[in-house]
């Protein structure tokens, strides 16, 4: 009997075990998944909580309900992977042996990594919506906000769902307009990037959307520390911006056990082959989803497409054959833009987001790089899809690799 051990039952880990279990004979392969929580969170839903669109009940379900029969679920905290011995040690001392290991423990916000960010103002005038607890607290903070300057801030790339802070800025703008107090709120988007986003066409469009909404942009801002007394953020090149409310995306880092096990880079993300997710050091360790160091978005859509590629490769891999499929970094993200509209981005390692229709060329129904109400409904509908189709590993008719069909080359000038 051989063991496949999956660390983490988030989007990637859960989808993976659901898709793989029917393909591996139960008398040949056992599958075990380890996670430190009993809950599964629909993380894209955090964004809507501060504005009252979702409540915590919308985004949390018991994890066990998504793990299929024939897969053992262990609730526990991982201490260390010991690759030479093909073992994983849990904090409670349990030793788990593996023949093949998949690291799918994601990436997490780490406010402790920026001096002053988790100081006395944390939870008072400093908030994040990157955790359920933070998003819930931020809802109250927005409710009570009477006016002043709000900074929507990104510490450093990469972050999970890189469009989420922009969406937050758009939704906040719309929210304060609806409360008829937009004139008393100054919004500034503060980013380490040199524009609103990373890829040129989308960056220009999203930058224009900030302008139209009179949201300021402070670019190339690489934060050094937060001054809690003065309520300012200070950059390494000594710019200082004051705030009444700081909505930050803290540094995102992979799990600490990844570093302890010698498997991570400086952000505890696991260096892997960008095409097949195999560790650069070990032939029986994969990292998939946000835990890997792929140069594409850290997002559920990527995890979903990546798992499809992984499944096609895993059976040949355990037979000792070459892995036939190569991932292209395919990602797509809905971008909420406020007032019941959204945009959709579709891109990969090589091709930046371009305008067009998705998933069916010309027909859509979704419009790429364009604000429409249909895109917004797509984003809301996705929550149902996530719980009922994606996590259980049902077939979703979206190809894993990106297609150029239906896209228009954009004029970059």
């Amino acid at each position, binding site marked *: 009997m051989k063991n496949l051990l999956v660390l983490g039952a988030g989007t990637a880990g859960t989808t993976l075990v659901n898709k793989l279990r029917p393909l591996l004979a139960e008398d040949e392969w056992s599958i075990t998944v380890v996670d430190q929580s009993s809950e599964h969170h629909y993380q894209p839903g955090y964004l809507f909580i501060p504005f009252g669109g979702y409540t915590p009940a919308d985004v949390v379900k018991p994890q066990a309900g998504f793990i299929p029969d024939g897969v053992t679920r262990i609730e526990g905290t991982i201490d260390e992977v010991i690759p030479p011995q093909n073992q994983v040690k849990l904090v409670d001392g349990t030793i788990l042996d593996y023949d093949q290991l998949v690291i799918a423990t994601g990436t997490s916000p780490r406010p402790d990594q920026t001096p002053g960010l988790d100081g006395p103002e944390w939870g008072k005038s400093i908030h994040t919506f990157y955790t359920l607890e933070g998003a819930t607290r931020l809802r109250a903070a927005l409710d009570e906000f009477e006016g002043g300057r709000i900074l929507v801030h990104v510490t*450093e*790339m*990469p972050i999970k769902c*890189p469009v989420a802070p922009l969406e937050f800025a758009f939704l906040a703008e719309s929210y304060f307009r609806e409360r008829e107090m937009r004139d008393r709120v100054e919004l500034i988007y503060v980013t380490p*990037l*040199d524009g609103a*986003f*990373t*890829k040129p066409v989308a960056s220009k469009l999203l930058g224009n959307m900030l302008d139209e909404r009179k949201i300021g942009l402070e670019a*190339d801002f*690489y934060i*050094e520390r937060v001054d809690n007394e003065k309520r300012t953020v200070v950059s*390494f*090149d000594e710019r200082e911006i004051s705030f009444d409310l700081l909505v930050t995306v803290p540094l995102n880092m992979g799990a600490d056990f990844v570093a302890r096990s010698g498997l991570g*880079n*400086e*952000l505890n993300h696991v*260096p892997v082959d960008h095409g097949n997710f195999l560790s650069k050091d070990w032939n029986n360790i994969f990292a998939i989803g946000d835990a890997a160091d792929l*140069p*594409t*978005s850290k997002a559920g859509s990527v995890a979903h497409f990546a798992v499809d590629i992984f499944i096609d490769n895993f059976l040949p891999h355990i037979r000792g054959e070459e892995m036939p499929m190569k991932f292209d970094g395919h*990602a797509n993200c809905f971008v909420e833009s406020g007032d019941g509209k959204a945009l959709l981005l579709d*891109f990969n390692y090589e091709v930046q987001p371009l305008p067009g229709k998705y998933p069916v060329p010309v027909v859509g129904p979704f419009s790429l790089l364009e604000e429409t109400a249909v895109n917004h409904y797509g984003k809301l509908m996705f929550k149902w899809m996530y719980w009922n189709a994606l996590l259980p590993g049902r077939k979703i008719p979206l190809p894993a690799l990106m297609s150029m069909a239906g896209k228009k080359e954009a004029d970059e000038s």
Partner: protein
Amino acid sequence: MTLATIAGHEVHVDDEGFMTEYEEWDDGLAKQLAINIGIDLTERHLDAIRFLREDYLAVGETPTLRRVTAVGGIPTKELFQLFPKKPAKKMAYVAGLPKPVGCV
């Protein structure tokens, strides 16, 4: 990709002027590249540049600012003083490496 003449050498560069051929770079070119962006290269600049070159060779990617600090051991504050405003991009330019990938 086009050819440019820098410090008397013909080298390949992309449309933003970043060199594209690892082997075409040398210390003399670095000096001229630095001058192009208003930097007078010192030994301390070169420490950072050498780390970038070595790390690129080992990893296959231009290191991020965090990596130059965490692995290369040069404080971020100092990198901003050596290569003002956009250190990651400027270091890559002087080191003759691809522009760091804007992670998305």
